């Protein structure tokens, strides 16, 4: 079976549509299937239906915060254990990273985004998802 050639699906969640668009284009150029959500509720619905391998999740969003969305995704009965979640955050203090750990996040990127760094982080997280991705 040629399952390994299926491109990994990545969900990008950011209320700033310009940011989301830039990230989407960059990831698509590198061959990933990209889904985009502009708020937490939509992100959870897409997450449940599409089961993305990696989620890029903005922390500061109106409505459900990124932390809450992260926690809910990680609690998903079927896909919660398999997904890798990368938080996009302006925060970089020790305590903030501690808080990120409590929600179950796997990785983080500080804003403003460095696209090169972002791609590297997506890759290293995908490497841990295993062949099913």
């Amino acid at each position, binding site marked *: 079976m040629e399952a390994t050639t299926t491109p990994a699906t990545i969900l990008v969640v950011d209320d700033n549509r310009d940011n989301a668009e830039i990230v989407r284009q960059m990831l698509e150029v590198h061959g990933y299937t990209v889904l985009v959500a502009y708020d937490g509720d939509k992100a959870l*619905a897409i997450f449940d239906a599409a089961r993305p391998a990696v989620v890029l999740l903005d922390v500061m969003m109106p409505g459900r915060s990124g932390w809450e969305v992260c926690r809910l995704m990680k609690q998903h*009965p079927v*896909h*919660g254990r398999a997904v890798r979640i990368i938080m996009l955050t302006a925060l970089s203090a020790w305590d903030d990273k501690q808080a990120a750990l*409590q929600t179950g996040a796997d*990785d983080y990127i500080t804003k403003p985004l460095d696209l090169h760094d972002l791609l590297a982080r997506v890759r290293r997280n995908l490497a841990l998802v295993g062949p099913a991705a």
Partner: protein
Amino acid sequence: MLPDCRVERRATEELADAMDALAGVRAVLVSTSNPVPLRAIVEKARLQRVPVVVACRDEIARRRAVELRADEWYRTPAPPDEIEWRVRSATSRVAIASTAAADRIERVEYEEMLYDTLTGMPTLPVMIERTRGLIKERGELVVFYLNFVRYTKIEEIYGWEKLDEVLETTAAAVREFLDANAFRSTRMMVGFTNDDDFIFFHVPAAGVPAATDRDVTEAARRLQQFVAERLEEAHGEDIAALFDIYVGYAHVYYNPKIRLERLIYRGIREAANAARSVEERERARKVADLRRVIHDRSIYIDYHPIVLADTGRVFGYEALARGELRSLRSPEVMFEVAAEADLLWELSRLCRARALEGMRDRLTDGELLFLNVDPHDFADPAFVELEHVDPRRVVIEITERTAIKDYPKFRERLRTFRDRGFRFAVDDAGSGYAGLGSIANLEPDFIKLDISLINSIDTNFIKQNLVETMVGFAREQGAMVIAEGIERAEELDTVRRLGVPLVQGFFLNHPERERRGAARQAMAQAGERGTDGRRAE
């Protein structure tokens, strides 16, 4: 079981090939643990938008089902209505994949209300619904309440991932026990309440008398033992020793005039109260046990090696005191009981004295003894055990069991020890309480990372970043970082790569045990045998 459905059986290998030809199939239920056909089935089913439910025989099969992203899974054996529910849930998930987003969110949340996501056990509303018919028929029901007391402690020490693993092991063990052992001929349902406790309903089958008090007490004892064994197998003695079950129960008699929900909730409350009074009785007994332990000096010391990350050579030993009585095996439990009984200083003195006694014939040149000391101990006027030891050989490991009240005074006490040549380690660094600022204040020579930071560090990049930060910080402060709780090769590789110089954990060495009786015997028997081969590994 699915009254409105037709069920067809196929052999696993055959199914993988026949998937393309199966038109009109609403769901596939697979019980294989062989990953090859399972993967083929899941992949083909996904293309055809047919949900797959996997019946998992064990933990490995469950992990595989999750990895392959099966739509649902359950652990076998499972009651028919759970299987039905899983199949329906998977079917509906696929069916509504195209409907409005908001509906789906509600459904996910509704699902969480009915089944605990972690243990897969039904929650109370589901249990009450299922019991309704049975209790009317039989007229009575026994509610058991299983109170698990140390779970929060596990989360504090090891982090929430570990707690999740422990809860899964426990849930599986409880289910297995009830299926195999207790009250075999009767109907039984297990549920899970959110604060770490389990509830189960026992409805006697027709013609079988309800369990007597003696049956229940005996079953509770065996259940506790069974779960403890499973926890020890899966997570080691330290975690198993942190846990206790107290079982309470109450009879509920059917009364058509009172709503069933009210009857059952009342029963649960009574059973929970009963469990709590068992717990109080046990605590009183533990205090008595602890007084005896202190009087008889019946603790022993585990010396857990701390080794150099790159060579594995022993750098020192952390002395861990354990009670000889099983109920007081865990140091966390011992100190908790001591705090309640106002015996903290007495217990600490005993632990220090015993650790130092054992150090004499253990340490070879250059090796250090890491001695746990609570900040509260420095105020003890009888803190004298360190008067007669070589300060260059002892590292005082500050373990914050109680919050530091008088900071300036505490630092002044530290200063006197430092002036005499003792070195210091801070324990549990990075656990949220001990931020970088308060660590710097103590000017430690060693910084011990909190276990929760090391657990699964190989797959969590945030943890890696935190540890890297701490290593850099320590270097600036002239301190050495110690990573404790290393349980897997991947964890060791990761902390090595991050520049952690010292490591400790079951993956590297098991603690070296010295029982009091054994030590005394060895000393009495003959000096010529020296250290009786303890150092041979």
